[in-house]
């Protein structure tokens, strides 16, 4: 009952689906940047609103980017 209080959660839309991205590219690290926290962690789907398919691709792309030092593994 209590949970019903407050605002209805807004339906989030996967931004990759909107842009019709087939494969999330690890080279576009400036785009990937939006999906990591300031500590460098991958933003959860619950926050970013990505669909499952693109979230999976995103995670792999971020990990590739990190290997190539385009994104940090961690930021203090």
């Amino acid at each position, binding site marked *: 009952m209590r949970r019903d209080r407050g605002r209805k959660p807004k339906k989030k839309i996967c931004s990759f689906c909107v842009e019709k991205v087939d*494969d999330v590219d*690890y*080279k576009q*690290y*400036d785009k990937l*940047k939006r999906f990591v926290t300031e500590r460098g962690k991958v933003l959860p789907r619950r926050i970013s609103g990505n669909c499952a398919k693109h979230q999976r691709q995103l995670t792999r792309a971020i990990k*590739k980017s*990190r*290997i*190539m*030092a*385009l*994104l*940090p*593994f961690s*930021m*203090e």
Partner: protein
Amino acid sequence: MELYEAMIIISPELEKDDHQEVLDGLSSAITKNNGSVSTVLDWRRRRLAYEIDKVQEGHYYLIYFSADGTVIPEVEHYFRVTDEIIRFMVVRTSEEEFEAAAKKAASEAEAAKKAAAEESAVVDESAAAVGASEAEVTESADTAETPEPAQDSQEKTAEAEVESSEAEGEEEKPADE
């Protein structure tokens, strides 16, 4: 035959003139095994997101090539034995990406040529006595060296972002010590 994309980071300590040597070594490793290099994109020098082997910067190159899968161990071996390459990654890529890269390289080359032509035109005006052959030499040198102005703005902003994030990192470093 598969399509591959290799990204390498060359140590900033290596002079820019010697980069070609590293790239040549790579292409010979590929062609020796019946592969062929399609495009080489110069991502230029950029700041690394974190320190690798005590360096903060690296010169990125993207190499697109088609080859059999058996070439990959050879290529990776070459990357490993070349000390100037501080990071590498080979991934399979799509035909669209392959073509997009080729197109980008072509437009970059054209823009570089244009810039070089403009530059040499200026040179010609200021020093009309300069022989045509000499002008040609400077032009070809320029094409090789001028960082292409064709780099799209998106990449530039990306670079700026990297720099700004790097600045943040530096702010925090003294606190650590």
